[in-house]
């Protein structure tokens, strides 16, 4: 970049990179900013239409409905950012929930159930990771197969039955509040996990490696990054977080059926992509995804308050997903054109 004030002449216009206008353009073409603005707009619109929206108690309780998906979205950022995908996560939930239900029937206590949940989750993730990184099979194909496999295990054993007996203390994770406040435990847990994952992604070597792998696997390998090891850890993390989400969900609804969390893989991927993580790899932030989670979660809540039917919500989610990728492409195009113009100006 040129010195602090660099007036560049181009097509009769002055472009100053550090001017207020230029900085604003950079800021407002950032995906995270657009999302945050959209979120503010959403709150303003809904709170003007219905008096029940901007209510502390309602807002807190509404978060119960999307916090499990939010937890699942965090490691999915890592997976998608490094150019992979995992469409088996909802089935991992089914498997974990099944394992915990099975153990609970056998009389395992809450601490034991948590241990089982976390370890089954991480094992399922490692199972995916093994096929993908050690045998070099495409992530989409492997997780497509394990999607049937994991849920299939639960279905084969449970058939059309359900596990409904869990220890009383187990209910806290999905239904409890922190202390005497109205803040759900799930919400706090998610925020803590988001901070941890955000720290890993944005402040550690591991995070930088993820960006590098997402941009170019072979370049990353030549730079001395153990690409396959990082990807394996990603899938294991994904499994672990699915285990956490399964504990929260099972605890919240208090029962395990084979069709638990059906289609959540797609909803989670929607959250991550909407949050600005590029499916082509190499781009995305934890704050962006966090905003997207609350944006979509409260959109559903608000639309529910207005009695808008579920089918319209399904359509909205789909449209948002496509726009979320189309718009950055479009913004990139504009940015590229501006850059080109600046370069041309500099050369002349």
């Amino acid at each position, binding site marked *: 970049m040129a010195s602090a004030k660099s007036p560049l002449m181009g097509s009769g216009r002055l472009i100053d990179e550090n001017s207020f206008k230029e900085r604003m353009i950079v800021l407002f073409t950032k995906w995270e900013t657009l999302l945050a603005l959209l979120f503010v707009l959403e709150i303003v619109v809904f709170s003007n239409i219905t008096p029940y929206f901007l209510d502390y108690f309602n807002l807190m309780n509404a978060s119960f409905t999307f916090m499990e998906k939010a937890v699942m979205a965090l490691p999915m950022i890592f997976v998608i950012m490094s150019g992979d995908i995992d469409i088996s996560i909802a089935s991992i939930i089914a498997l974990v929930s099944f394992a915990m239900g099975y153990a609970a029937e056998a009389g395992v206590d809450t601490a034991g159930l948590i241990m089982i949940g976390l370890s089954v989750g991480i094992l399922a993730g490692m199972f995916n990771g093994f096929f993908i990184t050690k*045998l070099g099979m495409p992530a*989409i*194909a492997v997780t497509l197969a*394990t999607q049937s496999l994991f849920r299939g*295990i639960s279905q084969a054993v449970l058939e059309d039955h359900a596990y409904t007996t869990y220890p009383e203390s187990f209910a806290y994770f999905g239904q409890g509040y922190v202390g005497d406040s109205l803040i759900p435990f799930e919400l706090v847990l998610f925020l803590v996990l988001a901070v941890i994952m955000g720290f890993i992604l944005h402040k550690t070597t591991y995070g930088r490696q993820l960006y590098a792998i997402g941009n170019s696997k072979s370049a990353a390998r030549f730079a001395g990054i153990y690409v396959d090891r990082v990807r394996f850890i990603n899938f294991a993390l994904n499994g672990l977080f699915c285990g956490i989400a399964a504990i929260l969900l099972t605890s919240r609804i208090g029962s395990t059926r084979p069709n638990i969390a059906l289609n959540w893989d797609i909803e989670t991927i929607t959250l991550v992509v909407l949050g600005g993580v590029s*499916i082509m790899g190499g781009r995305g932030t934890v704050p962006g995804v966090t905003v997207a989670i609350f944006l979509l979660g409260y959109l559903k809540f608000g639309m529910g308050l207005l009695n808008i039917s579920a089918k319209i919500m*399904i359509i909205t989610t789909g449209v948002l997903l496509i726009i979320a990728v189309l718009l950055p492409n479009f913004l990139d195009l504009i940015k590229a054109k501006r850059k080109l113009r600046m370069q041309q100006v500099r050369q002349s």
Partner: protein
Amino acid sequence: MRLIRILRAAVARREISLIILIGVLLALVTMRAPMFLSGNNIQRIVNDTVILIMVSLGQLLVILTGGIDLSVGSIIAFSGMSASLINQAHPAIPAALILFIGVLVGTALGMVNGAVVAFGKVPPIITTLGTMSIFRGFTFVISKGQWVTAHEMSQSYMNLPHGDFLGLTNLIWWGVLVSVVMMYFSTYTRSGREVYAIGGNTTAARFVGVSERKIKFMIFTISGFLSGLAGVMWTARYAAAVNETATGFELQTVAACVIGGVSIAGGSGTVAGVILGGLFIGIINNALPVINLSPFYQMFIQGSIVLLAMLINTLADRRQEKMLLNRRRS
């Protein structure tokens, strides 16, 4: 020695090893239940599988370019629902015209996918993940959440797949027609070969003048066309158009492709392989009740088979690479 070499070459060809596998499977099931291999039952299995094969052939083209079409199930639901609604409202309209409209609807939805992928530069998995919800949502919108049931459909509409011709159902003939056309298209036409070229090496294909945009638009349109056809056939065959028609069907089509030896990375796979892959799934699904295995095992078994099929694909590819390396070294 020579025999072994020939055998090895035969097993290396996915189609032949699949035929052998299907033969073994049939033999095993027939041992437990002799009536499984009767002519009637075979026709029933094929009849059950034709729709899967037709849609999988569209999926094949998309996968060949390195993409994936997750919206096929929703396109089936939407086009099937619109055809059934027209039939319900105007029973006098000839069934052939309704079929045409249904296929047209499917094609249009496929074009939406194609346009977003080819011109919007949105990755296929995201596009079709989005349109999967969108099309499914609109199915609910046009049906207002209602079903169209057998007594609301005209006889001629239900005869579209059920009618008989030369001893086989119309549905099977449709399947044969689609398979033959697709075989010809993928092997002997310029556009068909360009699909393989894009999947094999996009950059190289672009340099020899293949229009990536045109091909991507085309394959999603074809996939939509076949899904539209499948949608009409589905609703007419089961004499019911429900909003949940074909949920999860996209995964079965991908499974048929993977079992048929299609590489998910794109560039390799054959029509014959996919047909056999589809038949394999059909036989398994039909065999489970025959050998007294609860249908609840279906999902688990299907998942294991897909994983196994891919494992075999990968290991075979590795072997081939190693052999190539050895040859280069010597």
